[in-house]
């Protein structure tokens, strides 16, 4: 049974029908605005008539601004009805008997503020990039990808079913990888993009599998069949085993996008793209996408203490790893990447501990602060000189830290661990990638010899039967 979550007596004086229609329109606007700019900027470029720089920036910016405004308006409407979630049914992809794949969005106390925040941030970065990328050959491409990202972000945030969420999630992944490889004439950039994309794809398996299980369990991907109530106090509607299984898979999916150990190796390398995209992706929005998905499905986690325990462990582990490794990074962007990773780890731990509101605030705060820091990173020398002038000397190296307690030999050892980025990548390479690779190679060899054998016997027969 689909629980009815919206009723007239819960609203503050506005008729339910009106608010429903309003929310529907506004939510669609949030989604369509960036998508429309994507078409407006992308299509002319596709046919070889790119809009000018000014128009491109303006157009994409207007899309984000509209999304932001629509988000704010939705927020007001929601306030009138005590943030009771509004499910917007856009259509059904297919339905077979009791099973249906529907296209649903949800506007509630989590998704709508998040849309405001992400659209607003995108708008700011868009304005920044308009000047920053002036005369860059890939100007239009950048803004097209930014629009893809914005559309995907809003789709993911507003998703009311795991299917829609997955679609948005994939938009995010592809735009992120393509922006890391923005300077595709450089080998490093392409490699870093490929690495990020591979990590994403591996972890996407988690989300996909979760979707399949959800469909299997409740006959549709809709969140309202999984949990009900007002965020953050919704109740889980599925048995704990399903909840645990889905939660674990979601955690796995989230780890990749949010750069959690042991999938964090791509993050420092991702700093190959232009500075504004680094800021919005790895300082602000993309890095928190995993955390958002977990917040979205929090009721499932509630019913899955095992997943929560795992989440706390991963989060704390990542935070410690990132702080240690970050402390030896000598280039600004890697240093900031690890700083982001630290906070993302803490946010994971907070979610695991059930501190949802704190986690949400932490995400927003951290995203804003970090994107400013990344955007400003080319100013490091300027800022440093100012700071030195103010202090009348060099700033010290941050005072006491844990490492000072260790004997010198262990310090050296620990430094090396940090410099090698905690051996994380090699451990994954040796433990997972290499065995899988070898297995695939064996399969490949087997197939080749089989094909060869087949080919031989065929040609033998052919020759015998030939003229």
């Amino acid at each position, binding site marked *: 049974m689909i629980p009815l979550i919206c009723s007239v007596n819960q609203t503050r004086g506005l008729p339910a029908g009106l608010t429903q229609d309003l929310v529907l329109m506004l939510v669609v606007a949030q989604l369509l605005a960036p998508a429309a700019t994507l078409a407006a900027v992308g299509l002319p470029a596709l046919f070889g008539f790119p809009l000018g720089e000014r128009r491109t920036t303006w157009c994409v910016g207007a899309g984000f601004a509209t999304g932001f405004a629509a988000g704010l308006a939705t927020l007001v409407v929601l306030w009138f009805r005590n943030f009771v979630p509004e499910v917007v049914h856009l259509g059904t992809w297919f339905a077979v008997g009791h099973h249906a794949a529907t296209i649903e969005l949800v506007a509630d106390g989590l998704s709508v503020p998040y849309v405001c925040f992400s659209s607003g941030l995108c708008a700011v970065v868009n*304005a*920044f*990039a*308009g*000047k*920053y990328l*002036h*005369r860059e050959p890939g100007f239009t491409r950048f803004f097209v990808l930014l629009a893809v990202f914005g559309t995907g972000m809003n789709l993911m945030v507003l998703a009311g079913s795991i299917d829609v969420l997955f679609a948005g999630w994939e938009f995010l992944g592809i735009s992120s990888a393509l922006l890391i490889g923005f*300077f595709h004439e450089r080998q*490093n*950039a392409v490699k*870093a993009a490929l690495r990020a994309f591979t990590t994403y794809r591996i972890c996407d398996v988690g989300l996909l599998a979760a979707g399949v299980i959800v469909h299997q369990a409740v006959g549709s991907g809709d969140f309202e069949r999984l949990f009900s109530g007002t965020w953050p106090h919704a109740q889980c509607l599925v048995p704990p085993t399903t909840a645990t299984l889905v939660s674990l898979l979601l955690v796995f999916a989230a780890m990749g996008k949010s750069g959690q150990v042991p999938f964090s190796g791509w993050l420092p390398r*991702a*700093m*190959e*793209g*232009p*500075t504004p995209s680094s800021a919005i992706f790895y300082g602000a929005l993309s890095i928190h996408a995993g955390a958002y998905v977990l917040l979205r499905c929090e009721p499932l986690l509630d019913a899955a203490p095992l997943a929560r325990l795992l989440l706390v462990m991963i989060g704390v582990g990542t*935070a410690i790893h990132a*702080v240690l490794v970050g*402390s*030896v*990074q*000598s*280039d*600004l962007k890697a240093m900031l990447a690890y700083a982001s990773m*630290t*906070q993302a780890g803490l946010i994971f731990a907070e979610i695991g501990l059930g501190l949802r509101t704190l986690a949400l*605030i932490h995400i*927003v*705060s951290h995203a*804003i*602060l970090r994107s*400013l*820091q990344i*955007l*400003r*990173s*080319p*100013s*490091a*020398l*300027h*800022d*440093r000189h100012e700071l030195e*002038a*103010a*202090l009348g000397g*060099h*700033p010290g*190296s*941050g005072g006491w830290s844990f490492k000072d307690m260790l004997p010198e030999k262990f310090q*050296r*050892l620990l*430094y090396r661990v940090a*410099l*090698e980025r905690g*051996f994380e990548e*090699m*451990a994954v390479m040796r433990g997972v990638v290499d065995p899988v690779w070898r297995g695939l190679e064996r399969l490949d060899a087997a197939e080749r010899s089989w094909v060869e054998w087949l080919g031989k016997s065929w040609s033998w027969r052919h020759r015998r039967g030939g003229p």
Partner: protein
Amino acid sequence: MDDEIRNGRIGQAIERAARFLPSQGPIDIFVAQNILQGFEDEPFEAAVVHAAQVYGTQPFLAEARYREEFARGRIRDADLEAVLAADLGPSAHEPLAGGRLSLQELLLALLRNPVEKEDDVTVRWTLSEADDENHLATTELWLACVEAVASARPAVLHRQPPVRIRDLLQAISPALDTDEHTNPLLIRVCSSYLDQGVATWPMPGREKGLLGAVISLYEAGFGPTEPWNVGLPAALAAARGRNPLSVIAQQIDLLGTPPGMEEELIERSLLSLRGWAGMVRHFEDRPDRVPVAAVPARLVDFLALRLIFDRVAAEWIAPKLGHGGELARLWTELRDRYPPRYGAGSVARAFMVCQVARLVGLSAADIRSLDENEMTRLERAIGGFDGITRRRLLHLAYERRHEIELLDGLAARASLVEPGLIPRSGVQAIFCIDERCESIRRHLEETDPACETFGTAGFFGVPMYFHGIDDWHSIPLCPIVVRPRHTVIEVPESNASMHQALRRSVRRHLGRLKGGLADGSRTLIRGGLLTAVFGAIAAVPLVARVAFPRLTSLLFHRADQFTKRRIRTRLELERTDDTPLPDGTLAGFDVSEMAAIVRTLLEDIGLEKGLARLVAVIGHGSTSLNNPHESAYDCGACGGGRGGPNAWAFATMANDPRVRSHLGRNGFSIPEETVFVAAMHDTCSDAFTFYDETAVPATHRQEYAAFQRSCREAGVADAKERCRRFDAVPLDVRPEQALRQVEARAADLAQVRPEYGHATNAVCIVGRRARTRGLFLDRRAFLVSYDPDADADAAILARILAAVGPVCSGINLAYMFSCIDPRGYGSGTKLPHNITGLIGVMDGHASDLRTGLPWQTVEIHEPVRLLFVIEASTARIEAALTRVPAVARLVANEWVRLAAWDPATDAIVVLGREGFRPHKPESWSLPVVDRSVDWFAGQRGNLRPALIRAAFDERRTG
């Protein structure tokens, strides 16, 4: 003993190879220098080709670029003919193809028209697939060419195999690149070792040197390391405590480099990451220029590490090639497989001959009539005229046109303006020679036609370490080749010191807070709390900075004023105690030194007599945000610092009555009524800052105020002129809007082009301003004031050339090469730049240190060698050059172009390979406009000289 000899040899080889490393130091003091400094001993044209081989870069612009310039008339036919004739000399008229055409005709045709050089496969494809109407394969000419080529002898080329095993591997199987494995680790350890304070945890053991530090970190192998470096701990442990030179020798042996190729191996290995190697070298050479931690970096350590890494990686990769033995055998094996390159195949040759024949009008019959020798000669002539040669000649033609346009402008101006128009009534303003000061001087003269301007190297003859009141340490303010011997401190006026103490403490607390926040956001617990609780506050600066950059910066600036400046300060210029400071310099100058400085400068610029009542000394600097290359926009003559303090110091010295009386006793008088004032011009925001205004006596206040107004007005006009270069600013921008636009650029986080720095510089004119005044030189000319009348023995000219020669040519060549190859010589686009170690920038997360200028700075540059125009007789120039061998070498090897402008007759002679030859103007016409703005309005590109009427007093214009 043998070992010692060998080590010595290796040491020398390293020294020789080190001259090819980029000389750029830590980026916070960016000094524009000749990027090909190591090649200055060779003549320019040969040097750029040599350098291109060494670095794998481009010697000239792409041929297509020159052809574009040819198409739009920037290069003309006459230029091509002239440079070709000069280059060929007597062989120009050598007959080819049985006398049907001369060598010159052939080459000229090839210069004018692009001829595609294709390989056999492409030509075959073209022949079979392309179906144009007069199908080439069926034409008579094509058949004739095929036959003719078959009879001629082909030219075969051989390529030397590379020496580094990695290069050899790469050439044979491009998928195997050991650098791909070794470089990330080498970059990481170099960056951590040289770090000046990005990492909160500095590398332990840095005092042991780069090699020592890495050994102590890595000799104990543990953890799942990357596959290639499994052998690294053992290799490093074996190097422990040994002389790096012996380590290098051992690695060379293990790598199996054949004897005799040692030197090349060392060179290639150092150049494989030349940015980092150069930075290590810089730390070794100039520890005084290292910002914070002058760690004992040495190039030998770097090379030892490089070779150890290479060897370990090669040993790891050898089995993958089915090779288990030692690397020496691998090397030989690889070399044998190294593909030699043969000449073009017969189809390609025929295609080439066919194209050329069509171009020069040879018929099939003509081709058929050539015998084997004739045909071979024709083919050799075509083949010898390769891409590099064509580009070289196109480049010379490109420079020639620039030279003619400029010299014609100078000659025409001399014929239009009667001499003796020097105003002596108004203010005299002394600027830097910087080509950006050309426009501000011109606008000042237009605003106030009574004003007279001068140009001199922007440290105003005051080489000093300067410790400003807001600085925590002193910085050198003088050309990079000079090491100052004096330190000058800025102190608060005695009645303001209390005030100062308070401000300073507020500032320190604010600084500590800001630093704490920035650091804290990276830590675990503090960072978590900080970001979660206060992070959202960052939305305010984020939105404000992006949406309203100019207003935000004004606001921040106001806030800053509470803690900085505002109080009256003075320079502690005079030395009271002769004991040297801890750094070996003297605290200030004594009266005789000051007198010498004042006298030298005034003599240099030709102002021994006729000083006005008010003399302004104006330095320059540049402020921009989010710009790692900020220092590149500052004053080159101040070694990448700002010239304001030098101007102030000079004015203070010249105002000192004791200095004046000291000068008077030596027969050099400064009139009592003359007052010197100092200012600084911000070349980015076009703002003027005036120093120590209370020093102006009441009698001069009115003139001073009027001069300040003129400066501001000139600043607005200058902003308007600069805006024409910015694509994003509409051409019809109003002057006040233009000023706001440049102010916003200086304060905008998102702006990667705060200004264009020295881009477009092309000329250096040494002579009296009276001869260039009113001439629109488009911010492309360094203007050095020099009075030939007062310098019979060329002593002053020698002094001037010694100071401005290296500075101007260094700037010019830095821009030139960064523009010619923005990725090879320049630092590429700024967008992915990542500051590392506070010493430089990388592309993305792990690349070589990017030296040179970014593309955004040089994109509007026109790469031509600096043309020195010196107002002196050729004899005097030659006399001066013999005293300045460094500049004489630049001239002799043609790294700069030189023209002499006769002070008496206005005749111009240009230095060529056969000595000076007279410049015959092509045209005597010079556009005349009222004001500069009338000439540049609506134009984005470079402009020819024009005469500006407003710079002259109306009554006296001819």
